[in-house]
Protein backbone atom coordinates (compact mmCIF):
# COMPACT_ATOMS: atom_id res chain seq x y z
CA UNK A 1 0.00 0.00 0.00
CA UNK A 2 1.08 3.57 -0.59
CA UNK A 3 1.99 4.73 2.89
CA UNK A 4 1.42 8.44 2.25
CA UNK A 5 -2.19 7.73 1.30
CA UNK A 6 -3.15 4.88 3.53
CA UNK A 7 -1.54 5.92 6.82
CA UNK A 8 -3.54 9.18 7.08
CA UNK A 9 -6.66 7.43 5.78
CA UNK A 10 -6.55 4.56 8.24
CA UNK A 11 -5.46 6.65 11.19
CA UNK A 12 -8.20 9.12 10.35
CA UNK A 13 -10.72 6.29 10.17
CA UNK A 14 -9.87 5.22 13.71
CA UNK A 15 -10.13 8.76 15.04
CA UNK A 16 -13.36 9.33 13.10
CA UNK A 17 -15.01 6.27 14.60
CA UNK A 18 -13.91 7.39 18.06
CA UNK A 19 -15.38 10.76 17.18
CA UNK A 20 -18.69 9.00 16.49
CA UNK A 21 -18.55 7.72 20.03
CA UNK A 22 -18.10 11.28 21.30
CA UNK A 23 -21.14 12.25 19.24
CA UNK A 24 -23.08 9.41 20.80
CA UNK A 25 -22.11 10.64 24.25
CA UNK A 26 -23.58 14.05 23.49
CA UNK A 27 -26.67 12.40 22.03
CA UNK A 28 -27.12 10.51 25.31
CA UNK A 29 -27.28 13.83 27.11
CA UNK A 30 -30.31 14.78 25.01
CA UNK A 31 -32.20 11.53 25.57
Amino acid sequence: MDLWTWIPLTFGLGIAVLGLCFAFLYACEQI
Partner: protein
Amino acid sequence: MNMWLLPISMLLTTALLAIPLSRYLAWIMNGEYKAPGFLKWFEDRLDTGNLNWKQYTVALLVFNALLFTYSYVIMAIQPWMPLNELHRGMLAPTTMAHAAMSLSTNTDLQHWSGDVHFSNFSQIFVMIANFFFSASIGFCALAAIIRALRFGPDKVGSFFLDMWRVMIYMFLPVGFVFSLICLQQGMPMTFKSAHIVPTLEPAAMGTTDSGQAKQQTIVVGPLAAFIPMKQLGTNGGGFFGANSAHPFENPTALTNFLESVAMMLFPMALVLMYGRMLHKLKHAWVIFSVMMGLMIGTVVWTVYFDTYKPNPGITAHPQERHFEIATASGKKPVVLPAVAGLPVDQHLGNLESKELRFGTSAGATFAAMTVDVTCGAVNCAHDSLNPMAAISPMAGMWVNCIYGGKGVGMINMLVFLIIGVFVAGQMVGRTPEYLGKKIGGREMKLAMIGLLIHPIMILWPTGIFAATSWGQKAEFNPGPHGFSEIMYEFSSASANNGSGFEGLGDTWGLNDNPSPAPTSRPWDIATVIVICLSRFIPIIAPIALAAGMGAKKAAPFGLGTMRDDTPTFAFLLTGTIVILGALLFLPVAALGPVAEHLGPLPFGG
Protein backbone atom coordinates in the same frame (compact mmCIF):
# COMPACT_ATOMS: atom_id res chain seq x y z
CA MET B 1 -15.21 -38.58 34.30
CA ASN B 2 -11.61 -37.46 33.68
CA MET B 3 -12.85 -35.16 30.94
CA TRP B 4 -15.04 -33.25 33.36
CA LEU B 5 -12.45 -33.01 36.13
CA LEU B 6 -10.57 -30.26 34.30
CA PRO B 7 -13.43 -27.78 33.76
CA ILE B 8 -14.93 -28.49 37.20
CA SER B 9 -11.62 -27.83 38.94
CA MET B 10 -11.00 -24.66 36.91
CA LEU B 11 -14.41 -23.18 37.70
CA LEU B 12 -14.27 -24.15 41.37
CA THR B 13 -10.77 -22.75 41.87
CA THR B 14 -11.64 -19.48 40.17
CA ALA B 15 -14.89 -19.03 42.11
CA LEU B 16 -13.13 -19.65 45.42
CA LEU B 17 -10.35 -17.18 44.58
CA ALA B 18 -12.82 -14.59 43.33
CA ILE B 19 -14.52 -14.22 46.72
CA PRO B 20 -11.59 -12.76 48.68
CA LEU B 21 -10.39 -10.90 45.58
CA SER B 22 -13.74 -9.11 45.31
CA ARG B 23 -13.35 -7.92 48.89
CA TYR B 24 -9.94 -6.52 48.02
CA LEU B 25 -11.22 -4.89 44.79
CA ALA B 26 -14.06 -3.16 46.63
CA TRP B 27 -11.63 -1.97 49.33
CA ILE B 28 -9.39 -0.43 46.69
CA MET B 29 -12.09 1.12 44.49
CA ASN B 30 -13.89 2.58 47.52
CA GLY B 31 -10.63 4.32 48.40
CA GLU B 32 -10.58 2.76 51.87
CA TYR B 33 -6.89 1.84 51.63
CA LYS B 34 -3.96 3.94 52.82
CA ALA B 35 -1.44 4.38 50.03
CA PRO B 36 2.26 4.08 50.85
CA GLY B 37 4.10 7.44 50.82
CA PHE B 38 5.80 7.29 47.42
CA LEU B 39 2.61 6.04 45.70
CA LYS B 40 0.52 8.66 47.47
CA TRP B 41 2.56 11.39 45.76
CA PHE B 42 1.40 10.09 42.35
CA GLU B 43 -2.17 9.57 43.51
CA ASP B 44 -2.50 13.12 44.80
CA ARG B 45 -1.47 14.41 41.40
CA LEU B 46 -3.77 12.08 39.47
CA ASP B 47 -6.80 12.70 41.66
CA THR B 48 -8.99 15.23 39.86
CA GLY B 49 -11.66 14.99 42.51
CA ASN B 50 -15.14 13.77 41.71
CA LEU B 51 -16.06 14.12 38.05
CA ASN B 52 -19.60 14.04 36.72
CA TRP B 53 -20.59 11.22 34.39
CA LYS B 54 -20.00 13.24 31.22
CA GLN B 55 -16.54 14.36 32.28
CA TYR B 56 -15.63 10.81 33.26
CA THR B 57 -16.79 9.43 29.92
CA VAL B 58 -14.97 12.16 27.98
CA ALA B 59 -11.79 11.35 29.91
CA LEU B 60 -12.26 7.66 29.08
CA LEU B 61 -12.76 8.35 25.38
CA VAL B 62 -9.90 10.84 25.12
CA PHE B 63 -7.59 8.39 26.88
CA ASN B 64 -8.60 5.71 24.41
CA ALA B 65 -8.01 8.01 21.46
CA LEU B 66 -4.53 8.75 22.78
CA LEU B 67 -3.93 5.03 23.31
CA PHE B 68 -5.00 4.34 19.71
CA THR B 69 -2.64 7.05 18.47
CA TYR B 70 0.24 5.81 20.61
CA SER B 71 -0.22 2.21 19.41
CA TYR B 72 -0.42 3.26 15.76
CA VAL B 73 2.73 5.39 15.99
CA ILE B 74 4.78 2.71 17.77
CA MET B 75 3.82 0.14 15.13
CA ALA B 76 4.62 2.58 12.34
CA ILE B 77 8.15 3.21 13.66
CA GLN B 78 8.81 -0.49 14.33
CA PRO B 79 11.47 -0.86 11.61
CA TRP B 80 13.64 1.81 13.25
CA MET B 81 13.26 0.79 16.86
CA PRO B 82 15.62 -1.46 18.87
CA LEU B 83 14.85 -5.07 19.88
CA ASN B 84 14.24 -5.87 16.22
CA GLU B 85 16.90 -8.48 15.51
CA LEU B 86 14.73 -10.17 12.90
CA HIS B 87 14.36 -6.85 11.02
CA ARG B 88 10.57 -6.74 10.94
CA GLY B 89 9.32 -4.08 8.56
CA MET B 90 6.30 -1.83 8.87
CA LEU B 91 2.89 -3.40 8.88
CA ALA B 92 0.34 -2.40 6.28
CA PRO B 93 -1.56 0.77 7.29
CA THR B 94 -4.92 -1.01 7.43
CA THR B 95 -3.39 -3.73 9.61
CA MET B 96 -1.90 -1.07 11.90
CA ALA B 97 -5.26 0.69 12.25
CA HIS B 98 -6.96 -2.63 12.94
CA ALA B 99 -4.27 -3.63 15.44
CA ALA B 100 -4.29 -0.27 17.24
CA MET B 101 -8.08 -0.26 17.59
CA SER B 102 -8.18 -3.95 18.51
CA LEU B 103 -5.52 -3.71 21.20
CA SER B 104 -6.68 -0.41 22.72
CA THR B 105 -10.22 -1.74 23.16
CA ASN B 106 -9.23 -5.00 24.89
CA THR B 107 -10.41 -6.94 21.83
CA ASP B 108 -7.06 -8.27 20.57
CA LEU B 109 -8.59 -9.60 17.38
CA GLN B 110 -5.43 -10.32 15.39
CA HIS B 111 -5.11 -9.92 11.64
CA TRP B 112 -1.42 -10.50 12.19
CA SER B 113 0.83 -13.04 13.90
CA GLY B 114 3.10 -11.65 16.59
CA ASP B 115 5.97 -13.99 15.80
CA VAL B 116 5.86 -13.15 12.08
CA HIS B 117 4.99 -9.46 12.02
CA PHE B 118 6.04 -7.88 15.34
CA SER B 119 9.43 -7.14 16.83
CA ASN B 120 9.99 -7.56 20.58
CA PHE B 121 9.87 -3.77 20.85
CA SER B 122 6.30 -3.77 19.52
CA GLN B 123 5.34 -6.77 21.61
CA ILE B 124 6.42 -4.87 24.73
CA PHE B 125 5.45 -1.28 23.96
CA VAL B 126 2.30 -1.97 21.99
CA MET B 127 0.89 -5.24 23.22
CA ILE B 128 1.91 -5.39 26.88
CA ALA B 129 1.18 -1.69 27.33
CA ASN B 130 -2.30 -2.12 25.86
CA PHE B 131 -2.88 -5.20 27.98
CA PHE B 132 -2.70 -3.02 31.08
CA PHE B 133 -4.45 0.09 29.81
CA SER B 134 -7.31 -1.47 27.89
CA ALA B 135 -8.26 -3.84 30.70
CA SER B 136 -8.21 -0.98 33.18
CA ILE B 137 -10.56 1.13 31.05
CA GLY B 138 -13.43 -1.37 31.26
CA PHE B 139 -12.83 -1.75 34.98
CA CYS B 140 -13.05 2.03 35.43
CA ALA B 141 -16.28 2.18 33.43
CA LEU B 142 -17.89 -0.30 35.84
CA ALA B 143 -16.62 1.67 38.84
CA ALA B 144 -18.16 4.83 37.37
CA ILE B 145 -21.50 3.09 36.91
CA ILE B 146 -21.48 1.77 40.47
CA ARG B 147 -20.71 5.21 41.91
CA ALA B 148 -23.33 6.84 39.67
CA LEU B 149 -25.96 4.40 40.99
CA ARG B 150 -24.85 4.95 44.55
CA PHE B 151 -23.93 8.61 44.80
CA GLY B 152 -25.58 10.24 41.80
CA PRO B 153 -24.43 11.56 38.43
CA ASP B 154 -22.02 14.18 39.76
CA LYS B 155 -19.83 11.96 41.94
CA VAL B 156 -18.56 9.12 39.79
CA GLY B 157 -14.95 9.46 40.86
CA SER B 158 -11.70 10.33 39.10
CA PHE B 159 -10.95 8.38 35.92
CA PHE B 160 -7.17 8.80 36.22
CA LEU B 161 -7.09 7.77 39.87
CA ASP B 162 -9.22 4.73 39.05
CA MET B 163 -6.83 3.74 36.23
CA TRP B 164 -3.90 4.07 38.62
CA ARG B 165 -5.61 2.01 41.31
CA VAL B 166 -6.51 -0.79 38.91
CA MET B 167 -3.05 -1.04 37.40
CA ILE B 168 -0.90 -0.52 40.49
CA TYR B 169 -2.92 -2.28 43.17
CA MET B 170 -4.60 -5.01 41.14
CA PHE B 171 -2.94 -5.98 37.90
CA LEU B 172 0.69 -5.43 38.84
CA PRO B 173 0.80 -7.53 42.04
CA VAL B 174 -1.36 -10.39 40.71
CA GLY B 175 0.45 -10.33 37.37
CA PHE B 176 3.85 -10.38 39.06
CA VAL B 177 3.00 -13.50 41.09
CA PHE B 178 1.62 -15.23 37.99
CA SER B 179 4.69 -14.33 35.97
CA LEU B 180 6.96 -15.94 38.58
CA ILE B 181 4.97 -19.16 38.23
CA CYS B 182 5.21 -18.94 34.44
CA LEU B 183 8.99 -18.50 34.71
CA GLN B 184 9.26 -21.54 36.95
CA GLN B 185 7.22 -23.57 34.47
CA GLY B 186 9.68 -22.85 31.69
CA MET B 187 8.18 -19.89 29.84
CA PRO B 188 10.90 -17.96 27.98
CA MET B 189 11.76 -14.52 29.29
CA THR B 190 14.31 -12.68 27.18
CA PHE B 191 14.74 -9.59 25.05
CA LYS B 192 16.41 -11.79 22.43
CA SER B 193 14.23 -12.19 19.34
CA ALA B 194 15.07 -15.69 18.20
CA HIS B 195 17.39 -18.65 18.46
CA ILE B 196 18.81 -19.72 15.11
CA VAL B 197 19.47 -23.44 15.44
CA PRO B 198 20.51 -26.34 13.20
CA THR B 199 17.78 -28.93 12.88
CA LEU B 200 18.22 -32.54 13.99
CA GLU B 201 17.34 -33.68 10.49
CA PRO B 202 19.98 -31.98 8.36
CA ALA B 203 17.96 -30.42 5.53
CA ALA B 204 14.54 -30.26 7.17
CA MET B 205 14.34 -26.49 6.50
CA GLY B 206 15.72 -26.88 2.98
CA THR B 207 19.13 -25.87 1.62
CA THR B 208 20.74 -22.61 0.55
CA ASP B 209 21.93 -21.98 -3.01
CA SER B 210 25.37 -23.18 -2.00
CA GLY B 211 23.96 -26.48 -0.74
CA GLN B 212 24.22 -25.79 2.98
CA ALA B 213 21.35 -26.86 5.27
CA LYS B 214 19.14 -23.95 6.35
CA GLN B 215 18.77 -23.35 10.04
CA GLN B 216 15.52 -22.96 11.94
CA THR B 217 14.45 -19.68 13.47
CA ILE B 218 12.77 -20.19 16.83
CA VAL B 219 11.16 -16.95 17.92
CA VAL B 220 11.38 -16.09 21.62
CA GLY B 221 10.74 -13.01 23.70
CA PRO B 222 9.51 -11.70 27.06
CA LEU B 223 6.78 -14.30 27.37
CA ALA B 224 6.67 -14.50 31.17
CA ALA B 225 5.87 -10.77 31.27
CA PHE B 226 3.45 -11.02 28.35
CA ILE B 227 1.24 -13.98 29.21
CA PRO B 228 0.07 -13.01 32.73
CA MET B 229 -1.51 -9.76 31.57
CA LYS B 230 -2.76 -11.37 28.40
CA GLN B 231 -4.87 -13.66 30.60
CA LEU B 232 -5.55 -11.53 33.68
CA GLY B 233 -6.68 -8.57 31.59
CA THR B 234 -8.86 -10.81 29.38
CA ASN B 235 -6.89 -9.45 26.48
CA GLY B 236 -6.15 -12.67 24.62
CA GLY B 237 -3.79 -11.37 21.97
CA GLY B 238 -1.05 -13.92 21.45
CA PHE B 239 2.70 -13.41 21.24
CA PHE B 240 2.60 -16.18 18.68
CA GLY B 241 -0.05 -16.80 16.06
CA ALA B 242 -0.78 -20.16 17.68
CA ASN B 243 -1.65 -18.29 20.90
CA SER B 244 -1.95 -20.52 23.97
CA ALA B 245 -1.49 -23.66 21.87
CA HIS B 246 2.17 -22.69 21.46
CA PRO B 247 4.48 -24.42 23.98
CA PHE B 248 6.25 -21.15 24.78
CA GLU B 249 2.97 -19.41 25.62
CA ASN B 250 1.58 -22.40 27.50
CA PRO B 251 4.38 -24.80 28.40
CA THR B 252 2.69 -27.19 30.83
CA ALA B 253 -0.67 -28.45 32.00
CA LEU B 254 -0.27 -26.27 35.09
CA THR B 255 0.17 -23.09 33.03
CA ASN B 256 -2.88 -24.11 31.01
CA PHE B 257 -4.87 -24.51 34.21
CA LEU B 258 -3.61 -21.22 35.64
CA GLU B 259 -4.15 -19.32 32.38
CA SER B 260 -7.78 -20.47 32.41
CA VAL B 261 -8.19 -19.47 36.06
CA ALA B 262 -6.46 -16.14 35.42
CA MET B 263 -8.76 -15.15 32.60
CA MET B 264 -11.89 -15.88 34.63
CA LEU B 265 -10.65 -14.47 37.92
CA PHE B 266 -11.27 -10.74 37.59
CA PRO B 267 -14.55 -11.08 35.66
CA MET B 268 -15.93 -13.27 38.46
CA ALA B 269 -14.56 -11.04 41.21
CA LEU B 270 -16.01 -7.91 39.58
CA VAL B 271 -19.56 -9.25 39.85
CA LEU B 272 -19.15 -9.61 43.59
CA MET B 273 -17.33 -6.26 43.78
CA TYR B 274 -20.45 -4.71 42.18
CA GLY B 275 -22.55 -6.13 45.00
CA ARG B 276 -20.11 -5.12 47.73
CA MET B 277 -19.82 -1.52 46.54
CA LEU B 278 -23.61 -1.17 46.26
CA HIS B 279 -24.21 -2.98 49.56
CA LYS B 280 -26.32 -5.52 47.64
CA LEU B 281 -24.17 -8.61 47.97
CA LYS B 282 -27.08 -11.05 47.91
CA HIS B 283 -28.23 -9.54 44.63
CA ALA B 284 -24.70 -9.91 43.27
CA TRP B 285 -24.68 -13.57 44.27
CA VAL B 286 -27.88 -14.07 42.29
CA ILE B 287 -26.22 -12.50 39.24
CA PHE B 288 -23.08 -14.59 39.89
CA SER B 289 -25.11 -17.79 40.03
CA VAL B 290 -26.97 -16.94 36.81
CA MET B 291 -23.65 -16.34 35.08
CA MET B 292 -22.19 -19.53 36.57
CA GLY B 293 -25.19 -21.52 35.36
CA LEU B 294 -24.78 -20.14 31.85
CA MET B 295 -21.02 -20.74 31.93
CA ILE B 296 -21.48 -24.33 33.06
CA GLY B 297 -24.00 -24.73 30.25
CA THR B 298 -21.61 -23.43 27.61
CA VAL B 299 -18.69 -25.49 28.92
CA VAL B 300 -20.73 -28.72 29.17
CA TRP B 301 -22.16 -28.12 25.68
CA THR B 302 -18.76 -27.57 24.08
CA VAL B 303 -17.03 -30.44 25.88
CA TYR B 304 -19.89 -32.85 25.12
CA PHE B 305 -20.20 -32.08 21.43
CA ASP B 306 -16.48 -31.91 20.81
CA THR B 307 -15.07 -34.59 23.13
CA TYR B 308 -17.87 -37.15 23.09
CA LYS B 309 -18.62 -36.89 19.39
CA PRO B 310 -16.27 -37.79 16.55
CA ASN B 311 -15.05 -35.38 13.90
CA PRO B 312 -17.56 -35.87 11.05
CA GLY B 313 -14.98 -34.85 8.47
CA ILE B 314 -12.85 -37.94 9.03
CA THR B 315 -15.64 -40.37 9.88
CA ALA B 316 -16.38 -43.07 7.34
CA HIS B 317 -19.59 -42.97 5.31
CA PRO B 318 -19.62 -46.44 3.79
CA GLN B 319 -22.57 -45.90 1.47
CA GLU B 320 -23.19 -43.51 -1.38
CA ARG B 321 -25.57 -40.70 -0.37
CA HIS B 322 -28.09 -38.96 -2.63
CA PHE B 323 -29.40 -35.46 -1.91
CA GLU B 324 -31.13 -32.60 -3.60
CA ILE B 325 -29.96 -29.03 -3.13
CA ALA B 326 -31.86 -25.90 -4.10
CA THR B 327 -30.21 -23.66 -6.67
CA ALA B 328 -31.36 -20.53 -8.53
CA SER B 329 -32.51 -22.74 -11.41
CA GLY B 330 -34.35 -25.31 -9.30
CA LYS B 331 -33.42 -28.43 -7.41
CA LYS B 332 -30.23 -30.16 -8.36
CA PRO B 333 -29.35 -33.75 -7.45
CA VAL B 334 -26.07 -34.32 -5.65
CA VAL B 335 -24.36 -37.66 -5.13
CA LEU B 336 -21.75 -38.05 -2.42
CA PRO B 337 -19.65 -41.16 -2.98
CA ALA B 338 -18.86 -43.59 -0.21
CA VAL B 339 -15.99 -42.31 1.92
CA ALA B 340 -13.66 -44.72 3.61
CA GLY B 341 -12.75 -42.36 6.41
CA LEU B 342 -9.32 -41.99 7.90
CA PRO B 343 -7.89 -44.76 10.09
CA VAL B 344 -8.14 -42.56 13.17
CA ASP B 345 -9.33 -43.80 16.54
CA GLN B 346 -12.07 -41.35 17.50
CA HIS B 347 -13.17 -42.82 20.82
CA LEU B 348 -11.72 -39.72 22.52
CA GLY B 349 -13.73 -37.40 20.30
CA ASN B 350 -12.60 -34.75 17.87
CA LEU B 351 -8.88 -34.30 18.38
CA GLU B 352 -8.21 -32.20 15.27
CA SER B 353 -6.18 -29.11 16.19
CA LYS B 354 -6.15 -29.92 19.89
CA GLU B 355 -3.10 -29.74 22.15
CA LEU B 356 -2.94 -33.21 23.66
CA ARG B 357 -0.40 -31.99 26.20
CA PHE B 358 -3.35 -30.63 28.18
CA GLY B 359 -5.77 -33.53 27.85
CA THR B 360 -8.63 -34.33 25.52
CA SER B 361 -11.22 -31.90 26.89
CA ALA B 362 -8.84 -29.00 27.42
CA GLY B 363 -9.39 -27.42 24.02
CA ALA B 364 -13.16 -27.41 24.25
CA THR B 365 -13.07 -26.24 27.88
CA PHE B 366 -10.74 -23.36 27.11
CA ALA B 367 -12.83 -22.44 24.05
CA ALA B 368 -16.02 -22.08 26.05
CA MET B 369 -14.36 -20.21 28.90
CA THR B 370 -12.35 -17.84 26.76
CA VAL B 371 -15.36 -16.54 24.86
CA ASP B 372 -17.51 -16.31 27.97
CA VAL B 373 -15.03 -13.92 29.59
CA THR B 374 -14.23 -12.25 26.25
CA CYS B 375 -10.56 -13.11 26.59
CA GLY B 376 -10.06 -14.55 23.13
CA ALA B 377 -6.93 -16.56 23.87
CA VAL B 378 -7.20 -20.04 22.39
CA ASN B 379 -5.40 -23.32 22.98
CA CYS B 380 -7.03 -25.12 20.08
CA ALA B 381 -8.25 -24.08 16.66
CA HIS B 382 -11.88 -23.04 16.94
CA ASP B 383 -12.24 -23.65 13.20
CA SER B 384 -11.75 -27.36 13.94
CA LEU B 385 -14.44 -27.66 16.60
CA ASN B 386 -17.36 -29.89 15.70
CA PRO B 387 -20.20 -27.74 14.31
CA MET B 388 -22.53 -28.20 17.26
CA ALA B 389 -19.65 -27.57 19.67
CA ALA B 390 -18.85 -24.31 17.87
CA ILE B 391 -22.32 -22.92 18.68
CA SER B 392 -21.28 -22.57 22.31
CA PRO B 393 -18.40 -20.11 21.79
CA MET B 394 -20.61 -18.17 19.39
CA ALA B 395 -23.46 -18.06 21.91
CA GLY B 396 -21.05 -16.88 24.60
CA MET B 397 -20.10 -13.95 22.38
CA TRP B 398 -23.69 -13.25 21.40
CA VAL B 399 -24.98 -12.82 24.93
CA ASN B 400 -21.66 -11.28 26.05
CA CYS B 401 -22.56 -11.22 29.74
CA ILE B 402 -21.43 -14.60 31.08
CA TYR B 403 -18.98 -12.86 33.41
CA GLY B 404 -17.73 -11.11 30.29
CA GLY B 405 -14.72 -8.85 30.05
CA LYS B 406 -13.17 -6.57 32.63
CA GLY B 407 -16.09 -4.57 33.90
CA VAL B 408 -17.93 -4.64 30.60
CA GLY B 409 -19.39 -8.09 31.29
CA MET B 410 -21.13 -6.76 34.38
CA ILE B 411 -22.11 -3.64 32.42
CA ASN B 412 -23.75 -5.79 29.74
CA MET B 413 -25.48 -7.77 32.48
CA LEU B 414 -26.79 -4.48 33.88
CA VAL B 415 -28.49 -3.86 30.53
CA PHE B 416 -30.13 -7.29 30.70
CA LEU B 417 -31.11 -6.58 34.32
CA ILE B 418 -32.86 -3.35 33.35
CA ILE B 419 -34.66 -5.01 30.44
CA GLY B 420 -35.59 -8.07 32.49
CA VAL B 421 -36.97 -5.96 35.31
CA PHE B 422 -38.87 -3.84 32.79
CA VAL B 423 -40.44 -6.89 31.16
CA ALA B 424 -41.38 -8.31 34.55
CA GLY B 425 -42.91 -5.01 35.58
CA GLN B 426 -45.00 -4.90 32.42
CA MET B 427 -46.21 -8.44 33.03
CA VAL B 428 -47.52 -7.69 36.51
CA GLY B 429 -48.69 -4.15 35.84
CA ARG B 430 -46.24 -2.38 38.15
CA THR B 431 -43.80 0.40 37.40
CA PRO B 432 -40.49 -1.38 36.95
CA GLU B 433 -37.75 -0.43 39.37
CA TYR B 434 -34.18 -1.53 39.98
CA LEU B 435 -32.23 -0.83 43.17
CA GLY B 436 -35.22 1.16 44.33
CA LYS B 437 -35.09 3.55 41.38
CA LYS B 438 -37.93 3.65 38.88
CA ILE B 439 -37.07 2.69 35.32
CA GLY B 440 -38.56 5.14 32.90
CA GLY B 441 -38.51 5.82 29.19
CA ARG B 442 -35.03 7.31 29.18
CA GLU B 443 -33.54 4.31 30.92
CA MET B 444 -35.23 1.90 28.53
CA LYS B 445 -34.07 3.82 25.47
CA LEU B 446 -30.48 3.74 26.67
CA ALA B 447 -30.71 0.08 27.65
CA MET B 448 -32.10 -0.86 24.26
CA ILE B 449 -29.36 1.09 22.47
CA GLY B 450 -26.76 -0.64 24.62
CA LEU B 451 -28.31 -4.01 23.84
CA LEU B 452 -29.06 -3.61 20.12
CA ILE B 453 -25.76 -2.15 18.94
CA HIS B 454 -24.17 -5.56 19.49
CA PRO B 455 -26.39 -7.62 17.15
CA ILE B 456 -26.43 -4.80 14.60
CA MET B 457 -22.63 -4.77 14.52
CA ILE B 458 -22.60 -8.54 14.06
CA LEU B 459 -25.48 -9.21 11.71
CA TRP B 460 -25.20 -6.31 9.27
CA PRO B 461 -21.50 -6.78 8.42
CA THR B 462 -21.90 -10.58 8.36
CA GLY B 463 -24.70 -10.22 5.80
CA ILE B 464 -22.75 -7.75 3.69
CA PHE B 465 -19.56 -9.80 3.68
CA ALA B 466 -21.31 -13.15 3.15
CA ALA B 467 -23.19 -11.76 0.14
CA THR B 468 -20.18 -10.12 -1.52
CA SER B 469 -16.71 -11.15 -2.62
CA TRP B 470 -15.27 -9.48 0.48
CA GLY B 471 -16.33 -12.47 2.52
CA GLN B 472 -16.56 -15.11 -0.19
CA LYS B 473 -12.92 -14.66 -1.23
CA ALA B 474 -11.76 -14.84 2.39
CA GLU B 475 -13.44 -18.11 3.35
CA PHE B 476 -11.21 -21.15 3.56
CA ASN B 477 -14.10 -23.60 3.66
CA PRO B 478 -17.22 -23.86 1.50
CA GLY B 479 -20.85 -23.71 2.49
CA PRO B 480 -22.13 -23.13 6.01
CA HIS B 481 -18.70 -23.49 7.58
CA GLY B 482 -17.46 -20.57 5.52
CA PHE B 483 -20.48 -18.57 6.65
CA SER B 484 -19.59 -19.50 10.24
CA GLU B 485 -16.07 -18.18 9.69
CA ILE B 486 -17.40 -14.79 8.58
CA MET B 487 -20.01 -14.63 11.32
CA TYR B 488 -17.56 -15.65 14.02
CA GLU B 489 -15.12 -12.91 13.02
CA PHE B 490 -17.73 -10.17 13.39
CA SER B 491 -19.15 -11.74 16.54
CA SER B 492 -15.65 -11.72 18.00
CA ALA B 493 -15.04 -8.12 16.93
CA SER B 494 -18.35 -6.90 18.31
CA ALA B 495 -18.08 -8.79 21.57
CA ASN B 496 -14.50 -7.47 21.94
CA ASN B 497 -13.51 -11.10 22.28
CA GLY B 498 -10.66 -11.54 19.82
CA SER B 499 -10.69 -15.25 19.13
CA GLY B 500 -11.16 -16.30 15.54
CA PHE B 501 -12.33 -19.20 13.44
CA GLU B 502 -9.19 -18.81 11.33
CA GLY B 503 -9.81 -20.24 8.55
CA LEU B 504 -10.29 -16.68 7.23
CA GLY B 505 -8.04 -14.86 4.79
CA ASP B 506 -7.93 -11.47 6.48
CA THR B 507 -4.22 -10.80 6.86
CA TRP B 508 -2.17 -8.33 4.87
CA GLY B 509 0.57 -8.28 7.51
CA LEU B 510 3.79 -6.50 6.56
CA ASN B 511 3.32 -3.71 4.03
CA ASP B 512 5.79 -5.27 1.58
CA ASN B 513 3.93 -8.59 1.61
CA PRO B 514 4.03 -9.72 -2.04
CA SER B 515 0.83 -11.78 -1.79
CA PRO B 516 -1.55 -10.43 0.82
CA ALA B 517 -5.00 -11.94 1.32
CA PRO B 518 -7.16 -10.41 -1.46
CA THR B 519 -9.86 -8.95 0.79
CA SER B 520 -7.78 -8.14 3.85
CA ARG B 521 -8.32 -4.37 3.43
CA PRO B 522 -12.13 -4.53 3.76
CA TRP B 523 -11.74 -6.88 6.71
CA ASP B 524 -9.34 -4.54 8.50
CA ILE B 525 -11.53 -1.49 7.89
CA ALA B 526 -14.78 -3.24 8.81
CA THR B 527 -13.37 -4.59 12.04
CA VAL B 528 -12.01 -1.15 13.05
CA ILE B 529 -15.55 0.22 12.84
CA VAL B 530 -17.25 -2.75 14.50
CA ILE B 531 -14.72 -3.05 17.33
CA CYS B 532 -14.84 0.65 18.20
CA LEU B 533 -18.60 1.14 18.12
CA SER B 534 -19.31 -2.14 19.91
CA ARG B 535 -16.83 -1.28 22.63
CA PHE B 536 -17.86 2.25 23.50
CA ILE B 537 -21.58 2.53 22.81
CA PRO B 538 -22.33 -0.31 25.27
CA ILE B 539 -20.15 1.54 27.79
CA ILE B 540 -21.45 5.08 27.24
CA ALA B 541 -25.15 4.19 27.21
CA PRO B 542 -25.07 2.30 30.55
CA ILE B 543 -23.02 5.09 32.18
CA ALA B 544 -25.69 7.59 31.05
CA LEU B 545 -28.38 5.19 32.23
CA ALA B 546 -26.78 4.76 35.65
CA ALA B 547 -26.32 8.51 35.98
CA GLY B 548 -30.01 9.06 35.29
CA MET B 549 -31.03 6.41 37.77
CA GLY B 550 -28.61 7.74 40.37
CA ALA B 551 -30.25 11.15 40.18
CA LYS B 552 -33.64 9.70 41.13
CA LYS B 553 -34.88 9.31 44.65
CA ALA B 554 -34.88 5.72 45.87
CA ALA B 555 -38.33 4.36 46.62
CA PRO B 556 -38.59 2.65 50.02
CA PHE B 557 -38.72 -1.13 49.97
CA GLY B 558 -42.31 -2.27 50.28
CA LEU B 559 -44.50 -5.36 50.00
CA GLY B 560 -44.96 -4.83 46.28
CA THR B 561 -41.28 -4.29 45.45
CA MET B 562 -39.84 -6.99 43.21
CA ARG B 563 -37.09 -8.81 45.05
CA ASP B 564 -33.80 -9.00 43.19
CA ASP B 565 -32.10 -11.51 45.47
CA THR B 566 -34.30 -14.57 44.99
CA PRO B 567 -34.23 -17.66 42.76
CA THR B 568 -37.29 -16.28 40.94
CA PHE B 569 -35.28 -13.25 39.92
CA ALA B 570 -32.47 -15.54 38.79
CA PHE B 571 -34.88 -17.42 36.52
CA LEU B 572 -36.24 -14.13 35.18
CA LEU B 573 -32.74 -12.91 34.39
CA THR B 574 -31.70 -16.18 32.78
CA GLY B 575 -34.84 -16.21 30.67
CA THR B 576 -34.27 -12.63 29.53
CA ILE B 577 -30.71 -13.39 28.47
CA VAL B 578 -31.51 -16.68 26.73
CA ILE B 579 -34.65 -15.45 24.95
CA LEU B 580 -33.11 -12.18 23.76
CA GLY B 581 -29.93 -13.96 22.71
CA ALA B 582 -31.76 -16.77 20.94
CA LEU B 583 -34.25 -14.47 19.22
CA LEU B 584 -31.56 -12.22 17.88
CA PHE B 585 -29.11 -14.86 16.70
CA LEU B 586 -31.09 -18.03 16.01
CA PRO B 587 -31.27 -17.35 12.26
CA VAL B 588 -27.49 -17.03 11.85
CA ALA B 589 -26.97 -20.07 14.06
CA ALA B 590 -29.25 -22.01 11.73
CA LEU B 591 -27.42 -20.79 8.64
CA GLY B 592 -23.98 -21.57 10.03
CA PRO B 593 -23.20 -24.29 12.55
CA VAL B 594 -26.65 -25.96 12.58
CA ALA B 595 -26.72 -26.22 8.78
CA GLU B 596 -23.20 -27.60 8.85
CA HIS B 597 -24.19 -30.20 11.43
CA LEU B 598 -27.40 -31.29 9.71
CA GLY B 599 -26.48 -30.86 6.09
CA PRO B 600 -24.60 -33.36 4.00
CA LEU B 601 -22.33 -30.95 2.23
CA PRO B 602 -19.40 -31.14 2.53
CA PHE B 603 -19.53 -32.91 5.88
CA GLY B 604 -22.50 -33.90 7.89
CA GLY B 605 -23.64 -35.92 10.81
